[in-house]
């Protein structure tokens, strides 16, 4: 069921990416601002990109369309520099010379992310074959060493490959829930509401104004909301799984892990009136001491 849903989502994204009009003919390259709706490549430290990009996309709209299908993969946090690698192709930095990723960066990202793609039945794509990129030299984007200066180093360096995705769970006992709370980095109760106009934004839902944080973990007070907003934008698969039976939204208890600047929801529960175990666990959590 999960696999089918993910595949269906990607297939729809793929179909949506078909060009619908006559294409601009190739001319000289130019600098354009990174579109605000290009979620893949926001916040990387540069704001304009070269068009055509390194994947042959002729217009920003085309690049945005094609880049959205990569968002579910990135939400899996398969590699700390997966976004930098993908954006060096989708939204290459606009300098006097073409700056491509180094082969080592491609190999590192591929080795970590290809297993995740295989979970959903997709091989590493032909357009990202690592042989096409230059062996490391000074004028390509290489691995961690070059990136240390700019972006802040993420806490967990070793990529974590996992086939699991978030699912809406059924609470069976408050003890089990308390154990889950202890193992998770964060626990938060949120209200997700359906957006009325979804034509211009990627996400279909927005966060309610009230967040009830049961466990902050490494996230400070104000960070929880911004991290959850980012999660809503980027982890379309997880959000889709949670709201499959709640098309207009609802109240959910979210648990998961925090990796650097990213928040990953692993398990979630629908919070309703008859959720006795959830209420018990929430009450007991205030005085609960985790073992170890």
């Amino acid at each position, binding site marked *: 069921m999960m696999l089918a849903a993910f595949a269906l989502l990607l297939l729809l994204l*793929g179909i949506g990416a078909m*060009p619908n009009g*006559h*294409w601009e003919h190739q001319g000289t390259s130019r600098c354009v601002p990174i579109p605000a709706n290009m979620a893949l490549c926001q916040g990387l430290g*540069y704001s304009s990109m070269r068009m055509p990009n390194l994947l042959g996309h002729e217009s920003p709209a085309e690049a945005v369309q094609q880049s959205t*299908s990569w968002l579910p993969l990135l939400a899996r946090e398969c590699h700390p520099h997966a976004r930098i690698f993908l954006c060096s192709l989708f939204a290459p930095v606009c300098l006097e010379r073409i700056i491509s990723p180094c082969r080592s960066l491609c190999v590192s990202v591929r080795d970590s992310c290809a297993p995740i793609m295989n979970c959903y039945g997709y091989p590493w*794509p032909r357009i990202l074959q690592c042989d096409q990129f230059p062996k490391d030299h000074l004028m390509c984007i290489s691995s961690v060493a070059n990136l240390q200066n700019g972006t802040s180093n993420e806490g967990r360096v070793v990529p974590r490959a996992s086939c699991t995705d978030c699912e809406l769970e059924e609470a069976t006992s408050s003890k089990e829930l308390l154990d889950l709370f202890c193992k998770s980095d964060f626990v938060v109760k949120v209200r997700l509401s359906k957006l009325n106009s979804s034509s211009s934004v990627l996400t279909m839902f927005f966060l309610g104004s009230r967040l009830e944080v049961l466990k902050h973990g490494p996230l400070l007070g104000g960070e929880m909301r911004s991290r959850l907003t980012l999660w809503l934008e980027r982890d379309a698969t997880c959000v889709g799984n949670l709201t499959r039976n709640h098309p207009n939204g609802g109240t959910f208890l979210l648990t998961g892990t925090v990796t650097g600047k990213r928040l990953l929801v692993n398990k979630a529960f629908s919070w309703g009136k008859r959720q006795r175990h959830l209420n018990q666990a929430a009450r007991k959590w205030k005085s609960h001491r985790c073992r170890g």
Partner: protein
Amino acid sequence: MSSEYLIRSLLMLFLALFSANASNWLYLAKLSSVGSISDEETCEKLRGLIQRQVQICKRNVEVMDAVRRGAQLAIDECQYQFRNRRWNCSTLESVPVFGKVVTQGTREAAFVYAISAASVAFAVTRACSSGELDKCGCDRNVHGVSPEGFQWSGCSDNIAYGVAFSQSFVDIRERSKGQSSNRALMNLHNNEAGRKAILNHMRVECKCHGVSGSCEVKTCWKAMPPFRKVGNVIKEKFDGATEVELRKVGTTKVLVPRNSQFKPHTDEDLVYLDPSPDFCEHDPRTPGIMGTAGRFCNKTSKAIDGCELMCCGRGFHTEEVEVVDRCSCKFHWCCYVKCKQCRKMVEMHTCR
């Protein structure tokens, strides 16, 4: 009446006074200061056009900017391809822009005619694809699913339109002389060879779509090669050009190889009638031949760019100069490139 309009009118009048000897449309490349060719009145004042070309210009005013870009493309590509030869496609500020080099039936003239016809076809086709021209667009004959299984989509270059326009505009001068002239036949042949250099190198470009960049859905379109590729092809034809002469066959006149031992030339080959001068010395009586004095040459080369051949045995000067260049460039995240400044002494050789 604004001063800009007045200046433009005076410029037009000035140009008109010198249009009596118009003979070569490549001069369009020199008209960048005139701005866009946007009305029929401008057609009358353009130097380098014969009367029938003026008529084509009036009927296709919107195409003429592309023709002008084609003229510039032809000159730039010629100067690139001949950059290391004695004659390096230097231009004059008059008509014809290459001087007497192209008025004689030399293989250099053959190259110029071929690259010029190709550049017009190329520039017009590109204008079609970019949506600049309303009367043409993408090639609509390319659609559906190809035998290889991919979907034709996007904008296939409408090379048929560009070639047809090049044939009508560029060839009109030769056809106005009648078919009998050996020079006209040579030019018509070489014009067509230039256009064939594009037609025979059309290629298929594709994009992958769909799920995370996989090629589950692939769309393709037909595209012209880069014009550098066209220039390379025509230069190869120049290197292997066939010397021909006019011969009567029945009631028609055709060009046949001067040396009957050579195999006949094909539609794609360049042909020429007259041997080339050596291009060694500047001759005031032959505009367009600047000679090789002062040209850079390569001391270690035995090819045409070597000092012995380039300087025609006259010898060369050697001078040591300091060259400052960027080196050890490094990309820094995120995002800038930082280079060092490298200085080195290099020997420069120039012909006496």
